[in-house]
């Protein structure tokens, strides 16, 4: 058997196969993106972006959904960033090695592994019902926070640990306290990479649907306060598609969502480039 195919030939064949499978992966991706964009572009008009939906979204635009998504992200960020960075500072700068720290790190790992639908269920039982926040931006935003918190903690912790130890020593040697050292030297040095990480986290959260389904509500009205329900863009897309309301509108919403994700990721890359050389202004 082996004599039929020489090692050199099988080497060649295998390499061809590897090229082919990599190409399949790329082509699948291109096809998916291309298909959505081609189908969605005709729908993308200014009025689609700036009008409210009519007939459950079969006509009109998606402005309330865009605003809703934006508000949810805002709440999620405003809560996840301080808590996440605080946690990372504790883990990277303060925590004594030992049981407590291990439990905390384990908790962060656990939270990261919980399926988003379970977080959605929890958000419904805890935020919507138990705390009485109802279906609202607050409930949805906090549920999203539970989801991105582990990510924020992890990227912040890594960024802090990457700050050279010499800077800490330099600050301590000048008689600075621990918190002065952390807040004035270590944290500012880590801010660019933390920012990049947090923005990437937003990119992950923005398309998240299962978490907000049972927490943010599905109202198509423009929210007037943070206790109003909203229907985020990905959920709107789900309803349009699964209830067969309108495929064109669903394509349009998909393109808008994809563009948001793309812009967010490009922003993260841009920030990383810009701050490639660490320098902090006071």
């Amino acid at each position: 058997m082996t004599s039929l195919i020489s090692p050199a030939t099988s080497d060649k064949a295998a390499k061809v196969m590897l090229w082919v499978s990599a190409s399949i992966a790329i082509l699948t991706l291109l096809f998916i993106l291309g298909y959505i964009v081609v189908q969605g572009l005709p729908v993308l008009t200014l009025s689609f972006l700036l009008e409210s939906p009519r007939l459950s979204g079969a006509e009109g635009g998606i402005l309330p959904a865009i605003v809703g998504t934006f508000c949810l992200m805002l709440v999620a960020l405003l809560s996840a960033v301080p808590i996440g960075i605080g946690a990372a500072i504790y883990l990277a700068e303060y925590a004594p090695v030992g049981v407590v720290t291990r439990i905390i790190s384990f908790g962060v790992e656990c939270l990261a592994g919980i399926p988003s639908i379970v977080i959605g269920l929890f958000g419904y039982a805890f935020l919507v019902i138990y705390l009485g926040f109802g279906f609202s931006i607050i409930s949805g935003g906090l549920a999203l926070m539970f989801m991105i918190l582990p990510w924020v903690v992890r990227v912040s912790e890594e960024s802090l640990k990457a700050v050279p130890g010499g800077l800490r020593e330099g600050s301590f040697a000048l008689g600075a306290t621990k918190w002065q050292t952390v807040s004035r030297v270590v944290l500012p040095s880590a801010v660019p990479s933390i920012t990049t990480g947090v923005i990437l986290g937003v990119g992950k959260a923005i398309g998240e649907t299962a978490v907000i389904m049972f927490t943010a509500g599905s109202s198509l009205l423009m929210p007037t306060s943070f206790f109003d329900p909203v229907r985020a863009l990905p959920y709107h897309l789900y309803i349009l598609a699964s209830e067969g309301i309108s495929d064109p509108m669903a394509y349009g919403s998909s393109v808008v969502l994809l563009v948001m994700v793309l812009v967010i990721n490009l922003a993260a890359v841009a920030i990383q480039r810009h701050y490639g050389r660490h320098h902090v202004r006071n």
Partner: protein
Amino acid sequence: MSEIEIESRNLDLWYGSAQALKKISMAMPEKKVTAIIGPSGCGKSTFIRCINRMNDLVKGCRITGELLFEGADIYGNDMDAVELRKKIGMVFQKPNPFPMSIYDNIAYGPRVHGLRNKEELDRIVEESLKASALWDEVGDLLDQSAVDLSGGQQQRLCIARTLAVKPKVILFDEPCSALDPISTAKIEDLINMLKHDYTIVIVTHNMQQAARVSDHTAFFLLGELVEFGKTKQIFELPDKKSTEDYITGRFG
């Protein structure tokens, strides 16, 4: 004879279960330069990091014996490490300017100690840069990032930063080992100037440097203080065989 500023008596130090310093007893006089020499790993850095309690940051580091600064026990219960470090500054082997402007680097110390007055800060920055012979080179570039300076300039900036806190003692841990000969000469000149106002303890691998800048020299070997005395005497007429071997380059 000048007063004793820092004195250690039977100082022992362990990292975990490994003993890094054994019964170190020596007295460093005020406004003099004390050099600490010895082969790599003999505990030089460990010793001077005790003096401003930088070893507090090292987990598992344990100290017994006495270490006195102006007669007060550095490791005593009523000694505040933060207050102590205001009086005992330190310059490290690798220049470690903060990633901020030159001005902010030097104003850092006074600011963390509560100084907000702009004129006062300006004055301190100028004085410190002049005292560290950096003013002529960077006086016009105070807003520039400190990490853009050359290695030698960065090290002098770190010295200026230390001076801005107005310490009594400055510890130098191999301040020139990452620098070129010209920058090294500048820093040695600087140390010779500073010793009129400050008590200086310097760790160095460079025997000539120790001979040039110091008044007293301590020779460490494997965590023990082998010999301590006037620099001239240590270099010309050492008591111990191992000191002589080290100074003449016969080992280490």
